[in-house]
């Protein structure tokens, strides 16, 4: 019972991080029909920026803010100057482009920040709360993780549902031609979409790193889990991405707790294949059929 509770709570926290990452992938997919595999190294770079500031003696929160802001800028720059040229063209080229970026950012990080493991601080406690005599697996940082992702989700929903800007962004994602005719600056909306996505991605990078170790490939597994979570949610729906992230976090945590942590990526692969083959539109797809 104790172990099950631990597993579930760990899974919930991890799931929220995967959810944030999946959300970043979904935002970009909705805007430009590209799965941004370079999201992982982008988040890794911004987390390193935070680490450099924190190691230089500045507060955690300054590093946190700088990482999120630099994510925003990096996302905008990548869309405007690199990805813009392949948007709407061959799917294969777009994927290869993001993978090229993946390799570049990886090598740059190892070149600039070194490839050894470095520990990343956490702003809240990493010890489980005490309930009576037992320690449960929910930590202060875990609560912070859940709250941070929830805040981002609510913020995005408010932006997309409640503001004029969000409406314009949704319009550009649905039909570029018509939006352009209606006076929406589609290019600018796409850049903004990528920037927002990169910000959310950076958040997930910071949350994964907190209280753990950082090295140039520490996000490589997360891009897979984020992708699986996004596909679980249908790749199109932000809420689906979050639900998918939590479900995946729970399932992987169960695999890790009861089978072995080495097989967690394999379990993710199995879940991904099962979803793609049985329910390709995801668990909550709006459209009934979609070719994958």
């Amino acid at each position, binding site marked *: 019972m104790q172990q099950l509770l631990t597993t579930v709570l760990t899974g919930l926290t991890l799931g929220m991080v995967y959810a944030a990452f999946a959300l970043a992938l979904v935002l970009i*997919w909705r805007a430009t029909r*590209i*799965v941004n*595999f370079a999201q992982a190294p982008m988040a890794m770079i911004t987390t390193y920026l935070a680490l450099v500031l924190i190691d230089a003696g500045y507060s955690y929160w300054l590093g946190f803010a700088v990482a999120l802001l630099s994510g925003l800028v990096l996302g905008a720059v990548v869309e405007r100057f*690199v990805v813009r*040229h*392949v948007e709407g063209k*061959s*799917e*294969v*080229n*777009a*994927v*290869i*482009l993001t*993978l*090229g*970026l*993946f*390799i*570049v*950012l*990886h*090598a*740059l990080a*190892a*070149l600039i920040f*070194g*490839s050894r493991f470095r520990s990343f601080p956490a702003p809240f406690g990493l010890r489980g709360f005490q309930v009576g005599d037992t320690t449960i697996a929910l930590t202060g940082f875990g609560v912070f993780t859940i709250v941070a992702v929830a805040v981002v989700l609510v913020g995005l929903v408010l932006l997309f549902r409640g503001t004029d800007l969000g409406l314009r962004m949704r319009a550009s994602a649905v039909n570029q031609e018509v939006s352009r005719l209606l006076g929406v600056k589609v290019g600018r909306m796409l850049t903004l979409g990528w920037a927002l996505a990169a910000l959310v991605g950076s958040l997930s990078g910071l949350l994964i790193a907190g209280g753990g170790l950082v090295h140039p*490939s520490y996000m*490589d*597994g997360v*891009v*897979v889990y984020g*992708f*699986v979570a996004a*596909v679980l949610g249908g790749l199109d729906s932000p809420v689906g991405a979050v639900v998918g992230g939590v479900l995946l976090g729970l399932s992987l945590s169960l695999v890790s707790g009861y089978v*072995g942590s*080495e*097989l*967690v*990526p*394999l379990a*993710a*692969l199995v879940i*991904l*294949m099962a979803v*793609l*083959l049985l329910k*390709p539109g995801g668990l909550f797809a709006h459209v009934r059929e979609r*070719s*994958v």
Partner: protein
Amino acid sequence: MTRRQLLLALGALVVVILVLENTGPFRNGQFAAMAYYAIAAGGLTVLTGLNGQLSLGHGALMAVGAYTAALMLQERDAALPLVLILLIATGVTLVVGALVGVAAARLHGPYLAGATLALAVAVPGIPLYFSETLGGEQGLRVRVPEIPTWLADAVYFVTGQDLTPTRYLAYLGWLGVIIVFVLLANLSRSRIGRIWQAVRDDEVAAELAGINLGRARVLAFVVSAGCAGLAGGLLALSARIAAPSGFTLTLSLLLLSAVVLGGLGSLVGALVGAALLTFLPQVVTGVGEDLGLTDVQAAQLAPLIYGLVTVLVVLLAPAGLAGGLRKLTQWRRST
């Protein structure tokens, strides 16, 4: 097999003998590495360039071939001849490739990329879990079997030099390259190759023409996986080890970038890409150290260049370096 291909293959064999006999053990080792990269890249370029399927999981398929070969090469006196062991490694990977291919045939674009990416990340965990049989983090040591006496005698008779194990492996690798490339070239010019291209270019038209899309895709994946398996087996022999750290996501991504650099769908391009993967690191690491970088930093320059060139090729010359050169020569001829 046309006469032209036969002549090309024989010419390639002569070049291989000349090059391998006139280089030392270090270069022999590098050529052995280039051979397995070329085989894997050749399979990947046929899959991606001809059939339009993207695989980020070829590093994982190489791991399957490498571990299969390694399991049979635990003793100094292997029970089976080496060529047979490599064929078995290829066969096992073919079967795994068929399983992956059946699932992959229903996916395309980013979905296929994501699924094969998951494969690339998942497979290195398997030897860690089954560490009893698969050696865990340290991996499996591979013993290179004795060179058959008749072969050693024959080589001595022709070249007047003793056949070192490294040179033996390089020969084996390049023999593999020649056979695989002749097979792939024939396959892509055949009916099957045209079917693959039809599926790539227009699914609906291909289906209307009576092509079974799924079957064509699975076949392309299986052929490509077989190449990766053979390459993995050769890698295990050359490295004398099969360990999870040899088959990271980076390997899969570098293979893909090699194929893109050389030009998707071009076997010559695959060879160019394999040469870049093998020889570029040494060159740029040297340059980096001259510029005052530490050796750890300088080792990152090669991947940085692969990545940058991949991005530039996709943006500027989607036909790759080989395609760009071809265009240039055609342009020269026409003016």
